[in-house]
């Protein structure tokens, strides 16, 4: 009696239709980026790579991509180091206190970013960190920690704790056990965590709207201004690059996790 309530044909089709609704609208940026017109449209008399040339010849766009990349890498490294240690610490303790720490880590995911943006703006005014790389990196790292803690905790739940005990009883130190046994054992979870933390920073707009203005002008900020001010097809070319980056990162994640 396997599959006693298998969905019928029409139900299945509707399910796939919803998947199409999820994926297809995004693909529209591909043809629009190749348009031969100067406004957002499908190609009319042939395709053109002019908008890609605009993008790669434009110092502002390239500058923003570079800034976002730089901030994303630093934020990811910090979030990974702190988040992974925290997840391992909680996993070793498994007490009510460590459960509380994990619950606390969910708060930044639940509270709307706009609320935090108000607070951190006032905070950075006092610390003179408005519109600085340091200010943005700290914020992205701290708000990225929860994603790392969740992903690494999930990986640890599937990791055999006896391996760690075996290493310890054979004389390995805390750090040796960590580097040689635990971390390699949860590598797929670490890769996922790092990708999550990077995307979180790379994509973050709301806080940046508050705490950065001129010196730091990240990619999401430039896209935001583009959408609100001049909708030209260069935006579609940027969108294509971002879609491709997402596809690459998702492929890496799925490949690592399937092993």
């Amino acid at each position: 009696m396997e599959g006693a309530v298998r969905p019928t044909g029409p139900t299945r089709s509707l399910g796939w239709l919803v998947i199409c609704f999820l994926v297809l609208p995004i693909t529209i940026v591909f043809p629009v980026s190749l348009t031969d017109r100067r406004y957002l449209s499908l190609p009319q008399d042939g395709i053109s790579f002019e908008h890609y040339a605009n993008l790669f010849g434009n110092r502002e766009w390239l500058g923003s991509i570079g800034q976002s990349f730089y901030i994303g890498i630093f934020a990811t490294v910090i979030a990974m180091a702190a988040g992974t240690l925290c997840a391992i610490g909680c996993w070793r303790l498994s007490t009510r206190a460590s459960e509380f720490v994990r619950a606390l880590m969910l708060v930044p995911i639940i509270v709307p970013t706009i609320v935090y943006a108000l607070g951190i703006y006032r905070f950075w005014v006092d610390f003179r960190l408005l519109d600085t790389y340091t200010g943005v990196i700290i914020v992205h790292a701290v708000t990225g920690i929860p994603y790392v803690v969740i992903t690494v905790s999930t990986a640890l739940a599937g990791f055999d704790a006896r391996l760690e005990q075996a290493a310890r009883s054979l004389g390995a130190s805390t750090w040796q056990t960590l580097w040689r046994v635990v971390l390699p054992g949860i590598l797929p979870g670490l890769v996922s965590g790092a990708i999550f933390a990077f995307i979180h920073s790379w994509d973050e707009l709301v806080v940046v709207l508050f705490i950065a203005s001129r010196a730091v002008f990240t990619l999401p900020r430039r896209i935001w201004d583009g959408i609100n001010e001049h909708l030209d097809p260069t935006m579609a070319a940027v969108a294509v690059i971002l879609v491709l980056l997402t596809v690459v990162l998702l492929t890496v994640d799925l490949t690592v996790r399937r092993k």
Partner: protein
Amino acid sequence: MSERRKAWLFIAPALAMVVVFYFTPLVRVLWVSVSEPALGFDNYAMLFTSAPIQRVLITTARICVFTTAITLGLAYLVAYVLTHASPAGQRLMMIGVLLPLWMSVLVRAFAWVTLLRREGLINKALISLGMIDEPLALMWNEVGVTIGMVHYMLPLGILPLWAAMRSIDNRLLAASRGLGAGSLQTFLRVFLPLSLPGLIGAGVLVFIFSLGFFITPAILGGGKTIMVAEYINHTVHESLRWGVGTMLATTMIAIIFALLFGLSRIIDLRTLFGAK
């Protein structure tokens, strides 16, 4: 050094960073809401007296309810099909769920703008097909905001629902069929009740994320349909009324935690966030 001590040393850096750089600024928001421009609850009185604020709150509530209802219906369908799909079908469907989830929210909003605006691709297509004469107003109104929000929220609804459905014991369904119930009856009286906690959890989650959503509503609402997050941004950035902005922010946090508290009495919250 004891093992417990060492474990806490591992936890310390992340905990310290989150407390100092996240919770301290958050508490500051609460404080500003009762201290600017003057000490007291005057800002909160505006919830009951200010017509513009009430309008924004009602718009927000309406959009969130519609978004959550539509998202849940579609997400339930996808999760149901996903649960019963072949391994290959599951993999493909999962990619269809994860790809938009990981996709930049700005890219998604931008794609919807190219499709929905007055000179957008949907209106052009409909006009050239002769189905309409005048372009339809598909964005800069609640319709556009809801479409964009449902698109954003769907993966966030599908994943917890899928997790809930996967944990349903297939033998219960087989038993129901074996005892003579039809497939519709089995679905309505066995599968649906068993998936109900997942449905409620996903619903609260989507509603909470909708409530404070800024980017997509701001872009697709175009300043005409204004939700509370955009209103807060406007109040603080343009009119510099920090007291009002932080009051609305605090109200939002209060509503969210009240919802989560209610939810925690029904289901284990950790399952919802994949923390367990």
